[in-house]
C-alpha cells in the first residue's frame, strides 16, 4: 500500500466550539492513526530528520517502534534525548526543524514527527505506572535558577548523574513560559505538572516563591554550599512601544494578559483573579505570543479580536499552524498596520487605537523587508483593550545583583561557548536568558549542554 502524500489528520475540536472554551484544540492520534502515519516513514538510512532536531531525537527508530506496535519502547527512545516529549510534540516548530528535513516533504507532506512524538508521550502518560526513581547521590549540590524548559532539562540531566539539584522559581508554580505563557488550549497544564513530578520523583527539589537576586543572591547560593549554578531565568521583561496613551487603563503587556489567564486561571470561576473582559481587543505583534493572546481573548468572550502586525503574512514569525487556527477561530488580521497612539475616554479608559498603514521597503538587518509608514493612511480602531506582544528581553534582576556576570547590549547573559559557561566561575546559563526569546526545544538543548558542562566542571574540581 502506498502511503498518502498527506499527513494523517489529527482530530481537532470544531473551530466555532473551541473558540469558546479552553480545552485542548487537537486531541491527538488514536493508535490506528498513529500506525497509519508511522507507516509513511521511509526509515531513511541517512536520517536527515534527526539533524533537524536540536536535541537529535532518534526519529526513525522511535517511529519504527510505533510501526511495530511497541509504543512504550518508542517513548523510551525519545526520552533518551528529550526530557519533555509531550511538550515538544505539541509546541515545537516542527515545520522548521525535524519535519523540514524529512525526505517525504520533497514531494507531498513530511511525516508528522511531532504528532507521533506527542502520541508516544501521551500513551506513556496514560498507560505506564512506572515512576522515576532517584539515583544515589554523589554528594554534590547544584542550584538551578528558573523552572522553564532550560532549567527543568538541566535539573533532570544532573539528577540522573546523582547530583542534588535544587530548582529556585520566582513564581508560585514551576514551568516557566509553559505555565504562565502558553495557554491551556495548546498545552494542558496537567502535562507540565506531570513532567515536573517526574523530576521531583528523581529527587530534584523545586522551591517556588524564591526570587534569585532578591530572596537569595547568586553569591549566597555558593555560600550555601552549591558548587555550581545554572541560570535559566528566561526572557520575561516585556517590551512596550513607547507611544502616547500606552499607560491608559485597558492597555497591557502580553505577559500580564497571559499570566492572568494561564497562571492565575482567570477564566475559571473558582479562581479570584479578575481579568479584563471587554468587547474589542487588538493584539499588537505577529509571533506565537500574539496568536496565544488573541485566541485567549476570543475564549474570554471578546466579540472582536484583531491582530495588528506591521509586516505581511509572509514575514509573520508565528507558527503557520497557530495562524491557521487563529484565522479559523475568527481572529481578524490587520496586516501592514501599526498603532501610533492609544486614545482614552474621559475616565482614562482605552476607547480606540489610531493606527497607520505600512508598506514594505528594503530588507533590513534581519533580512526581512522593513515596514515603512504610508503617509496619510491613519485609521481608527474602536477597541477597549490592547495587548502589546512585540517582544520580551531578559529580566535585569539577576545581572544587576550578580557581580562579574557579563551581559550584552540586549541584556542577554554572555556565554563562552555551547557549554553555557559565563564570565563567572561555576555559573552557567542557557535558554532565553542567553539567546533572547526563542523556542522550548532550544532552551532544552541549552539546559542539556550546560548539565554536561557542570558535570565536567565539578568532576575536574574534585580532582584538584
Amino acid at each position: 500500500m502506498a502511503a498518502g502524500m498527506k499527513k494523517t489528520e489529527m482530530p481537532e475540536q470544531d473551530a466555532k466550539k473551541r473558540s469558546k472554551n479552553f480545552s485542548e484544540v487537537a486531541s491527538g492520534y488514536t493508535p490506528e492513526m498513529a500506525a497509519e502515519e508511522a507507516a509513511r516513514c521511509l526509515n531513511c538510512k541517512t536520517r536527515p530528520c534527526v539533524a533537524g532536531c536540536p536535541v537529535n531525537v532518534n526519529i526513525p527508530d522511535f517511529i519504527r517502534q510505533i510501526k511495530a506496535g511497541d509504543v512504550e519502547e518508542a517513548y523510551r527512545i525519545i526520552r533518551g534525548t528529550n526530557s519533555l516529549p509531550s511538550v515538544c510534540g505539541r509546541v515545537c516548530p516542527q515545520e522548521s526543524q525535524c519535519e523540514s528535513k524529512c525526505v517525504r516533504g520533497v514531494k507531498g507532506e513530511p511525516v508528522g514527527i511531532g504528532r507521533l512524538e506527542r502520541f508516544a508521550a501521551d500513551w506513556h502518560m496514560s498507560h505506564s505506572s512506572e515512576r522515576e526513581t532517584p539515583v544515589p547521590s554523589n554528594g554534590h549540590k547544584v542550584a538551578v535558577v528558573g523552572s522553564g524548559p532550560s532549567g527543568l532539562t538541566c535539573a533532570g540531566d544532573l539528577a540522573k548523574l546523582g547530583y542534588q539539584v535544587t530548582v529556585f522559581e520566582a513564581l508560585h508554580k514551576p514551568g516557566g513560559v509553559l505555565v504562565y505563557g502558553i495557554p491551556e488550549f495548546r498545552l494542558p497544564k496537567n502535562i507540565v505538572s506531570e513532567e515536573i513530578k517526574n523530576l521531583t520523583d528523581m529527587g530534584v527539589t523545586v522551591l517556588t516563591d524564591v526570587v534569585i537576586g532578591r530572596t537569595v543572591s547568586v553569591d549566597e547560593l555558593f555560600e550555601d554550599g552549591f558548587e555550581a549554578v545554572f541560570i535559566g531565568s528566561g526572557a520575561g521583561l516585556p517590551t512596550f512601544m513607547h507611544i502616547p496613551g500606552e499607560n491608559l487603563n485597558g492597555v497591557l503587556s502580553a505577559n500580564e494578559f497571559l499570566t492572568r489567564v494561564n497562571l492565575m486561571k482567570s477564566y475559571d470561576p473558582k479562581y479570584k483573579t479578575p481579568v479584563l473582559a471587554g468587547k474589542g481587543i487588538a493584539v499588537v505583534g505577529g509571533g506565537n505570543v500574539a496568536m496565544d493572546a488573541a485566541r485567549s481573548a476570543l475564549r474570554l468572550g471578546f466579540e472582536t479580536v484583531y491582530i495588528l502586525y506591521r509586516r505581511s503574512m509572509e514575514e509573520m514569525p508565528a507558527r503557520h499552524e497557530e495562524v491557521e487556527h487563529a484565522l479559523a477561530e475568527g481572529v481578524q488580521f490587520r496586516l501592514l498596520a501599526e498603532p501610533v497612539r492609544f486614545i482614552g475616554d474621559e475616565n482614562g479608559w482605552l476607547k480606540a487605537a489610531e493606527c497607520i498603514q505600512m508598506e514594505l521597503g528594503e530588507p533590513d538587518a534581519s533580512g526581512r523587508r522593513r515596514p515603512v509608514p504610508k503617509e496619510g493612511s491613519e485609521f481608527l480602531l474602536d477597541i477597549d483593550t490592547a495587548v502589546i506582544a512585540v517582544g520580551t528581553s531578559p529580566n535585569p534582576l539577576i545581572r544587576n545583583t550578580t557581580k562579574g556576570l557579563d551581559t550584552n547590549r540586549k541584556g542577554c547573559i554572555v556565554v563562552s561557548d555551547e557549554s553555557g559557561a559565563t564570565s563567572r566561575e561555576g555559573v552557567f546559563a542557557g535558554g532565553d536568558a542567553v539567546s533572547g526569546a526563542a523556542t522550548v526545544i532550544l532552551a532544552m538543548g541549552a539546559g542539556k549542554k550546560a548539565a554536561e558542562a557542570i558535570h565536567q566542571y565539578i568532576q575536574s574540581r574534585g580532582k584538584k
Partner: protein
Amino acid sequence: MYRIVKKRVLNPSVVLMEIEAPMVARKAEPGQFIILRIDEFGERIPLTVADFDREKGTVTIIFQLVGTTTKQLSALEEGDALVDFVGPLGVASHLEGLKKVAVVGGGVGCAIAYPQAKKLHALGAQVDVIAGFRNRELIILEEEFAKVATRFFCTTDDGSNGNKGFVTDVLRGLIEEGAAYDAVIAIGPLVMMRAVSELTRPYGIRTVVSMNPIMIDGTGMCGGCRLTVGGETKFACVDGPEFDGHQVDFDEAIRRGRVFASQEKESLREHECRLMKGVQ
C-alpha cells in the same frame, strides 16, 4: 506553607500578622514588600514588610481590609498557613546619611511608614512622625511610633482624638516654623501623597513616596505596575516602590488603580455571600 505565628487586630479594619518565612526574614529591609497568596484559588497581593525578626525567621505584615483577599486573610488565625509568601521584593529605602526627617503616614500607610521611622531612629536621625487617621477608632501603632519618634503628631480628620486636621496641616506648620528637613517620607493614600508632594515642592525638600499600584508577579515580568516618573515609564515592583514624589504622575497612578474596580466589587459581594451562607 507559611504559618501565621501571631495575629493582632489593631483596629476594626486593620490587622497585624507575623508570618513564618525564614528566607524572606533573612533579607528583608524597610521599604521592601512581599507578595502572598492565601490558597490555590487566591490572588497574589502585595503587602509591605512592616517588621521582621531574622532570628525567629518571621516577617510582620499589617493590612487594611479593603477587598476579598484582605478580608479572607483577616479571617485566618494563628496556626493557619498561607500557600505563598515571596520576597523581599522591591528596592530597600535609602535612609543612610539622613539627619532630620519627617515621616508622614496616612491610615494604614502608617504601617508602612513605621519600619522607616524605626530604622531612621536606629541610625541616629531626628525623626518627626506625623500620623493621620479618619477618626480615633482607626488609630494604629501609637505606642510603637512614640518610641522611635523625636516628636510625634497624631491627627484625625474629624478631630475625635482632640487633634483635628490633615497631616499636611501639621507638616506645613513644622516647615514654616523652620524645621529644616533633609527629607520627607510620605506613605498613605495616593491623594495624601500627592498633597504632601505638592506642599514640599516649593520648599525644595526631597520627598519620598511609596507607590502601591496593582501588581501580579512583583519581579518586572508583567508591567502591570507601571507608573510614569519624571516622564519615564517605571515598574514599581523593581524600580520602586519608593519614588521621588515630585516626579510621580499621580493622576495617572490614581486612574490605573481603578482598573479592576467593578470586578473587585463583584468579587467582594460574592465573597460576602459565601461567608453569609457559611454562617447560616
